């Protein structure tokens, strides 16, 4: 047969290169689509929000939902971009992963419950995307780099004992009390950023607001809890001191037998600083 390929179908090296470039572009686009997918869909997020969140946080994201009227602490007003659980420094916006962590774990001791079972990962991404629309900061600012948490040293009697001394040194008792029961001198009239009453945690109950793992407690010392009186100690305690303080706080929990730590909670009750 005298059939010849049309000129534009001959695979010259140049055409092969062009084709390869097009395939790479397609791969990148596919990857982009996937990234877009991870960002969540604001319209689907609105539906999730109105079903699960608006009752407390309000349809406008202002924390004025009907069910939230009498809760302490009050439901968070989302319009300032101010969030408790963050991996980022004091004052920073949270990352999306931070917000999903709050949805998965809830905030113990508050009315914010866990949505680990009731929402899929997909739905959580969607609702996070929608919640971020309430604050203009998310459109114009980026979260700061997450803090670094060094590896946890061993939980030992010595570490707990040093932690008890740190608790006194940095005056945790001002709010949390000499016995760490949330009854310090400044405990009774604390307010959040919106003027709503808020209480310091009783650290002896064994459940903490942002989780009980060592790294969860460490993170709170360093990042503080935005919107609450809990400040950042990033400039006032070293990483080693922070881990000792973590171990001391854990030793107060009923989960940790006192004969393991040798540091009963009463060891810090020696009067005011």
């Amino acid at each position, binding site marked *: 047969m005298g059939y010849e390929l049309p000129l534009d179908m001959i695979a010259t090296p140049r055409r092969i290169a062009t084709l390869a470039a097009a395939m790479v572009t397609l791969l990148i686009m596919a990857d982009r689509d996937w990234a877009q997918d991870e960002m969540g869909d604001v319209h689907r997020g609105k539906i999730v929000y109105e079903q699960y969140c608006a009752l407390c946080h309000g349809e406008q994201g202002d924390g004025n939902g009907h069910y939230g009227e009498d809760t302490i602490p009050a439901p968070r007003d989302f319009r300032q971009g101010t969030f408790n659980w963050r991996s980022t420094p*004091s*004052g920073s916006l949270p990352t999306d992963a931070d917000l999903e962590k709050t949805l998965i774990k809830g905030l113990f001791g508050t009315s914010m419950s866990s949505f680990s079972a009731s929402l899929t990962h997909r739905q959580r991404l969607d609702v996070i995307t929608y919640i971020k629309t309430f604050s203009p900061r998310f459109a114009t600012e980026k979260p*700061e780099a997450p803090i670094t948490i060094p590896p946890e040293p061993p939980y030992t009697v010595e570490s707990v004992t040093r932690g008890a001394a740190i608790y006194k040194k940095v005056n945790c008792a001002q709010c949390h009390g000499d016995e760490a029961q949330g009854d310090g001198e400044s405990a009774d009239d604390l307010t959040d950023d919106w003027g709503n009453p808020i209480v310091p945690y009783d650290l002896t109950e064994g459940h903490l607001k942002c989780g009980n793992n060592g790294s969860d407690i460490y993170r709170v010392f360093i990042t*503080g809890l935005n919107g609450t009186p809990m*400040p950042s100690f990033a*400039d*006032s305690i070293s990483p080693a001191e922070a881990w000792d303080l973590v171990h001391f706080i854990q030793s107060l929990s009923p989960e940790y037998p006192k004969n393991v730590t040798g540091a009963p909670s009463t060891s810090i009750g020696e009067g005011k600083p």
Partner: protein
Amino acid sequence: MGAGDAFFASNLRRNDAMTIPMRYGLKVLSASLISGASLLAQPALADYTVEAVSNGGAIEGVVKLSGTAPKAAPLEVTKNQDFCGQSIPNPVYSVGKDGGLQNVEVFLRGITRGKALSTNTISLVNEHCMFNPRVQGANAGQQVKISSNDPFLHNTHTQNASTNATIYNIALPFKGFSVTKPLPALPQLIKVKCDAHAWMRAWIWELDNPYFATTGDDGHFTIKDIPPGTYTLVAWHEAAGEKPTSVTVSAGKTVTVDIQLVAVKQP
């Protein structure tokens, strides 16, 4: 990129949040009335060019309260009374000799060129359960040294005065502790509180130009090295609000501007 740069980047557009949504609570609304509604009209980005000012003019004057200062109850000290005492004289309307009003921030608004911005590190001291100074001005890019001379925990919790968004909240756990932090990258009125001692309050007017002064205990202020021209001079007081005055500055001369603010009764 240092920690300070990271902070700046994160705060780069924070002022964009300075609009008050319709459904904002009354608390925020009243805060914005105190801080002055014109805060909202501030440009999002400073448009200021530094140039040499030779033979500039100056503005000086005294800020006074018209009428007598409202009677204000002393601040009730409810924490650490063994150190701070039972009460502290109310510092909001500090009227000195001849009626001069202290802690008024006086500044030019809208000036686009002139002397270099301030670069020194400003100071905010926690002492005897009060912030010192109560009111001061600063420029974006300046640092603030926050320190404590009190033997218990303070926390320095800075917020955008319009939106209440936390800028940062730093523990000052013991006497002698200090830390130096950058101010936000964009001009804004910063409200400072200590959650552990709720009566403590300070204000930092972060401005887009270096022409500012805080009145002393006699109500007097001086602003120097101003290029000749006509400007808006703003006097702001935490309770009496703010008052703009048009001022014309001539080369090499000092113009005297006395300002009267009307007292607003404290709630």
